[in-house]
Structure formats: C-alpha cells, structure tokens
C-alpha cells in the first residue's frame, strides 16, 4: 500500500528486535472473541485514480455555485475566495502540524493566530479574542457559558428569536445539562425585524444573565445593539452579539462601540469555501474582564531566552488539559487552519478593500430589494439591512420552484423555521451576483408571485 513504508524485510527485522514471530502476537492479549470478529467488511483498497474518479462523480452530483445562480445565505455566505488564500492555507507546514504546544517549532502557526486574534479585536472593537472556536453557533453557546461563569448567580439567558435557528438550538443544547439556567426567547418586532426592545426591558432584572442577539440578525436586520446595551448595562447583564456575516463589520459600528461585552460569530465569509456547511470557524472576542474565563486557546507574545520576539500558547490554566473538569470549556482541537485562512484573507482585502467589498455587497442587496419592490414585492421588515433581507411573497414554494426552473436558487423559505413568517423568502446578495442575475431573480419570483 502506497502509504506504508514497511518492506517485508523491515517487518521481519523489527519483529526480531521485539522478539516476537508476528505482528499478531503484539495484539494477542486482546480478547480472542474480539479479534475473531474484528474483520472489516469493506471493499479492498483502491488506487488513487479509482478513488479520485469515485469521489469526483459524487461531486458532480451536487450543484456547485457554478451551475446555478444562487442567493442563498442564512448563516453561510457566498464570497469570492482569492487563490492566494488557498495557496497559503494548503501549505503543508500549516496544514499538517498540530496544536502548537512546542512554541519553538510552531512560530508560523502561532504568529498567524496572534494576527488573527488582533484582526478579530479590530473588527469587534473588543480587547481580547481567542484562537478560534468550531463555528459561530458553538461560539455563541460558549459565550453564554462564559457569561455564566462571570456571573453565576443569575439564571436567565435571553436569546433573541432573531438569532439563526442553529445558533438558538446550539445554545439550548449546550445549556441543556446545566442546572438552574433558564433560556427564554426574545420575540422580534414584526415590523422592523429587530429584537423587541420592550420585551428586553421587561425581563431585565437582577436575574438576567445575558442577552444574545444577531448583528446583523437572521433576517439580515441590523439590530440596534446600543439600545439593548443600555438595558443590559443597567441591569448588570452581559450583551452578546453574534455575527454570521462578519463582512458587515467592515461598515457597521464595532460591537464594542455599541456596548457589547462578548462578540462571537462565524468567519466563513472571510476566505473559506462553503463546503456544505463546514468547516467554518468561530470567533470570540470580549472585554478584558472576561480574559480568564475565555474558552479555547490563546496565543500570546513573549520573548525567547535571547530576547527575540516569540509567540506561544498561553493562559492554559483555563483549559481542559490542565484544569480537566474545571476547565472553561472542553474544546481541544479547534479550527486553527480556518483562522489562518481568515487571517490571510483579511490581510489581502485590507483596510480599504474590505470596506469596499462590504459596500459593494450592500449596494447590490439594496438594489435587489428596490428591484423587487418595483415589481410589487415588498421587504418583510423595515429594519436596516446589509446584504441579506426578507421579502414577502405569496407562495414561497412556487416562487422557489419557478426560480429553480431558471437555474436560480432564490433564497430560503423563512416559514420553515419561523411559522409566523410563512410567506417570506430570505435573500442574500453578494459580490458574486451581478445585475443580470438580479434581474433574472426578480423576474422569476415576480412571475410566480
């Protein structure tokens, strides 16, 4: 087999050194009945060419972004990934190393993550960011857990219904086993699509642990975080913002500016392919007070013995391999390589480029909303939006079907996850869409509606 370097001679001589007759002897202590039934009933091994052919044919049985025009968003966003990002992230030195426990032999990964942490701090305006989480939803859940560690007497976790369903479910699942914590859902204002402020005020008392809201939220609406923050600050609760489309942060006020305590989100938009939903990368940033309660790895700057700048994992006393059952989180393997790709992407886009890209997204999305409006299709919500919005249609299913006939994936039927929003489509428009596509989209939906 091409992956095994052992020759028969190697095996014989190794066995001789060990002093046994066969490799089987080395596992002979494994109970015989287990060994007897351990045969793997799988097809025999295959050449690389065969494997490549089989898997390529599966890939062709999907619809890449190529075949269809797409307006799908809803937590994962279609963006152009520069080739340099792929070239960098596929460097074997980055891709085939592991957690940089040995700092002297891992400066490449460590420095890139230090840069990533800095970029996340810059985008969110917060003081400290970690080395990555699995994804946006689990990062949101971990943020709530962190808020709880900071303030363990409070019991009420308020999650905006305007958070993506997966985020809400992940928060509930992560909290499901914790005693005495109650999760409530904050309704959204049916007109604006943003979290119902009255309701926030209503529940804001000494028992309120935190409020979690999207920025922008699951309807693409830019939540008025500063107003929520005024309430949470007053109540002594934490405000957690979750961002699935971090490109918006290039234009929008930084969460910290609005009073957010912990900002989490999904980094996929920044240089990661869609990959049917994973791996993306979660990010988490917080005010410095949270530092010792952060989950996950942190990279810090230090010096070597000769005074040269160096980076290493730090504050590991929070982590599972040191603190075990008292750790801030169970996370071990994280999404480092994805964070590195994000870092490369942001370095390429840069200060001006990222803002221009964001503006371009916004402009296209707003143009789409206008074009739909001029065909009599109105936005479902009035709240300000970035590159995603909901549109009211009579029959979402037939609208989607009509579009699909024109090889367009027109969006997501919001009614699936929000029964109260049946008759709404969620559309995301990015730089990968052009005017021609937008017109075709509008025509298709308008016709069906």
């Amino acid at each position: 087999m091409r992956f095994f370097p052992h020759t028969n001679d190697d095996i014989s001589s190794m066995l001789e050194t060990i002093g046994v007759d066969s490799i089987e002897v080395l596992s002979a202590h494994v109970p015989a009945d287990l060994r007897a039934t351990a045969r793997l009933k799988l097809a025999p091994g295959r050449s690389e060419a065969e494997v490549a052919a089989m898997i390529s044919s599966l890939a062709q049985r999907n619809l890449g972004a190529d075949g269809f025009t797409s307006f799908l968003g809803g937590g994962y966003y279609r963006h152009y990934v520069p080739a340099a990002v792929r070239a960098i992230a596929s460097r074997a030195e980055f891709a085939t190393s592991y957690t940089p426990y040995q700092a002297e032999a891992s400066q490449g990964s460590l420095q890139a993550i230090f840069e990533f942490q800095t970029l996340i701090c810059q985008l969110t305006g917060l003081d400290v960011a970690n080395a990555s989480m699995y994804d946006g939803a689990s990062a949101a859940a971990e943020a709530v857990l962190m808020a709880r560690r900071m303030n363990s007497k409070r019991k009420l976790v308020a999650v905006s219904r305007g958070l993506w369903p997966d985020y809400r479910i992940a928060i509930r699942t992560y909290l499901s086993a914790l005693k005495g914590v109650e999760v409530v859902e904050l309704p959204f204002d049916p007109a604006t699509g943003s979290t119902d402020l009255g309701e926030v005020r209503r529940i804001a008392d000494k028992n309120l642990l935190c409020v979690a809201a999207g920025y922008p939220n699951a309807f693409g609406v830019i939540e008025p975080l500063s107003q929520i923050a005024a309430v949470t600050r007053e109540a002594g609760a934490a405000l957690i913002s979750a961002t699935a489309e971090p490109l918006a942060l290039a234009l929008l006020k930084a969460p910290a500016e609005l009073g957010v305590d912990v900002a989490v989100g999904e980094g996929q938009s920044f240089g990661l392919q869609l990959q049917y939903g994973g791996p993306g990368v979660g990010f988490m940033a917080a005010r410095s007070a949270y530092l010792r309660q952060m989950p996950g790895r942190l990279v810090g700057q230090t010096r070597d013995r000769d005074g040269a700048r160096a980076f290493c994992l730090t504050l590991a006393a929070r982590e599972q391999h040191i603190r075990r059952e008292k750790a801030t989180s169970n996370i071990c393997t994280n999404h480092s390589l994805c964070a590195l790709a994000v870092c490369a992407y942001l370095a390429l886009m840069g200060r001006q480029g990222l803002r221009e890209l964001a503006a371009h997204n916004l402009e296209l999305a707003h143009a789409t909303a206008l074009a739909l409006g001029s065909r009599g299709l109105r936005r479902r919500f009035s709240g300000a939006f970035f590159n995603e919005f909901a549109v009211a249609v009579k029959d979402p299913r037939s609208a989607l079907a009509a579009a699909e006939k024109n090889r367009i994936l027109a969006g997501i039927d919001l009614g699936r996850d929000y029964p109260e929003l049946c008759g709404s489509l969620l559309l995301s428009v990015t730089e990968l869409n052009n005017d021609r596509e937008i017109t075709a989209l509008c025509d298709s939906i308008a016709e069906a509606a």
Partner: protein
Amino acid sequence: MAGAGKIGVFDDSIESGEARISNGKAPLSKPRASQLASDGAVPLIFELSSHGRRGSDLAAPRGAVERAVETLGADLCRADLEAFPELSEPQVMRHFLRLSQQNFAVALQFYPLGSCTMKYNPVVNDELAGLPGFAQLHPHTPDRLAQGALGLMWDLESMLAEISGMDAISLHPAAGAQGEFAGLLIARAFHRKRGENRHKILIPDTAHGTNPASCTLAGFEVATIKSSKRGFIEASEIEHAVGPDVAALMVTNPNTLGIFEPEIQKIASILHAKGALLYLDGANFNALMGVAKPGHMGADIVQMNLHKTFSTPHGGGGPGAGPIAVKRDLEPFLPSPRILKHGDKFHFDYDRPDSIGKLRSFYANFGMLVRAYAYILALGGNGLAEASRLAILNANYTRKRLEDHFPAASAEPMMHECVLTHDLEKRAGVSTLEIAKRLLDFGIHPPTIYFPLVVPGALMIEPTESESKETIDDFVEAMERIYNEALGDPQLVKRAPNSLRLSRVDEAEAARRPILRWLAVAK
C-alpha cells in the same frame, strides 16, 4: 529557506525599537519591519502595513463606501477600519510563506505526538475536498440538488458503523471533544427517557482532559477511577464504583498508556447490569482497526476522531471532525438532523423528537468528511487493518529499542503508542521538557509529554504506521544520544533548542504579562 543561521541577518526587534545584537554582528542601524531576514524572523502583517497599499482589487464601483454609509446612516457606521493591515498581494504571500517555514509539520518532520496520530495526510484528499461540487455547495441547497454530498455522508456513516461495530452514526460533531459532549448528552437523554436521574460519570485517572471537561459541560459529576498499577482499569474497581447514580463509564481504549483494557468486556457487563452505559473514547482508534470493534466490547457510545485515525490533516490545531457512534437503543437521541435513504435518494430528516439537538451550525464539517471518506476508500478494509497492524508494530519496536534508556511506564503490552519514562531528572536534573526541546535540534517534533498524568515525566510516543523503520531508528538514536548528553553535558540539553531560530521561549512571561494582540505603537 532552511538552514539559515544567525550571521548577518536583519534584526527583528521592531516592537521594542531597540537594536538587538545578533551573534556578534552589528545590527541594522534603524530596525524596521523587514521581509528579508535570513534567520526567518517575520514581522507582523500590521508592521508591514503602509497606508494606501492594497492586496485586492474589487469590481466595486467607485464611491461605494460613501454611498453605503449614506444608505445606512452615519450612526450605524464606523468611520474606518483603523489599524487594519494594508499590504500588497506579493507581501501577503511572502509573509505567510515565510511564516510557514517556521513550523514543524508531519509532512516534513517526524512528529510522534502521542494521542494525536500524526500520520500521513494524502494530498489527493485535499484536492478532492476542493472540487467545486463540494467546495461551492451551500448548506441550504435543497437535498434534491445535493445528492452527491448526502450520499457520500450516508456511505461514510455506514463505513464508520462497520469499522466501529456500532449501529448508528452522526457526523455532526466538529471535533473529538464535541463528540464526547454529544455522546454524554445522549447518555443523559437516554437515562432521562427511562426516568432515571444518573448524575455521575466514572473516568479513569489516565483520561484525556477533554473527558472530564465534557462531563462537566454535560452536567455530570466526575468520579475518578484509579488505574491499577499495571495501567488499566480493573473490573472489580468498577463493580465497586457503579451505583444507581452512575450514568456511564467513559474510557479510552487503548487507554492513554497505550494499553488495551483487558477487562473491557467484563466491565461493560457490569455497567449494563447496573443500568449504566459504556462510553468509549475512540481517539485511539488507530490501534483497533481489524483488531477489535468497540461495539463488540460492549460500548454504547463511541466518538471517532477523523483527524486522527482517518487522516484528515490537523491544520495546526484543527479543523477536525468527531462523529459519534451509538448502539441501536440510543439512536433516537443522536443530533438532528439525520441522513436517511429512500430508494436511491437521500434526505435530511429533522423529525427527531428525542434528539439532543444541535451543537453547531448545519450538519457537519463536510470538508473533513470528504477527506476521511477518500482515505477509507483508498485503504479499504484490508488497508485499514494493515494500518493498525503497522502502527502497533512501530510503537512496539520503538518501545523495545528504547527500553534500556527510556523504559515503558508499564510492563503491559502496548498497542499503537508507548508511554515511556526515564531517570534523567533524578540522575542529571534533566526534565522531560528539556529532552523534548533537545529533540527539536535533531529535527524531530517531540512526543506528547507529561501525559498521562499518572506517569512521572511521561513521554507518550505514537509513531503511526506512516513512518519507516529508518526514521524510528534515527529517532531512537537521537533519544539515546540525548540520554548520554544529559549525563555528560546536561547544559547542552537544558538550554535546548540550540539550533532553531529561537532559543527557549519564555512561556511564563507570556502568562505573567499577557500580550494577546498587536497594538499600534504611536509613531
């Protein structure tokens, strides 16, 4: 460029603003961010930044930013992305390529990091995961239009079921630890459903840190089981420890000493008899393929780390994937959705009333699944079994060759990894950490050290099946040499690494005065 030493290099002490004397050569007159340093020192992207540079050209129409701010209203908008990097594309490429050369990695170095299974990662798998039909597939694509991806996952689930001897698989968890968490929530839901309130998990003292941490997260109390002197769990101990409050025993097999738990079946019977479950941490699966199936051992729940046994690259710390496998009666509790097959069509099923829910967005780390699937197809049943056989051979050969200087922590047979110890601390005041750092001078990534915690100064060595006899022989020779150096010239070992760009990194300083991000220095 490897082999670049310290003579004549540009100075890298940008941040301090102070010129540093490197190896007796005069430093540059004005230290600055240089992309040339021959010793490999790399400035931060922020230090390379210069206002007005760009690394991307966009089709965005002119004035878009101003118009966008007008559209949204200034009070929603930030004024700028202050201090964000501004580099050209060539600089960005050079930056990261130069950084990459500052890493050890298994593609280039021997990397016997115990418990991490740093085996060869076939590059073709990365290519296949990058096919447009996968890479550009949006997670909200209707099932109908994603049959290839769904079919691949369905097939992978069947394969993992066969390999593990379990009945049902969910590919949902993002990593081993998330798999543990999912598994423990399933155990919890199972007992709840039966009206039982079991709040304790038994965990041996050799367990990986994620095990107790996951228990806490899943709302369980941890009760530690002491391993026997020989290094495994005794059934009698479990018999004794399992009460009606015990939800499960969580055990790694082979355990973190590399030892196959000899009484595992008996233990499973005891647990089952008392209404408790057996959770098997499958991170060490590389020892088991074709040797023993967890399902047959009596395991009820197993998580499998695809980034270990199934060869998806570790990525400097991730991403990985941690599928969870269960026996039939636990299937209803698996994360939602599940993939079902009707005729020759696949779809996601969300109608899972007993499911524990979701731990992350969407279904799974699909990109990693493609790689693991390609790996299993390539090896096939025979190849996977051979992988385990050779992994076991390599570990036992390493153990045997090193036994005079670094004896095994237990006299028991070990499987795919061996945990060794040594007397150098006592004899020469040389620590395991120092031995590890000295290995770097030999171009070898050190084993896992100080783990499992029960072994003083542990060296946990997992060569994997990908390494040749020659490489192990070289490793053995390096270890023997270090042993002798420690006795003859301990300073050589204690001040290691001696040959990398950096000397020993001061981790204590990093923790004492945390600098976790770059900050612009006033110019």
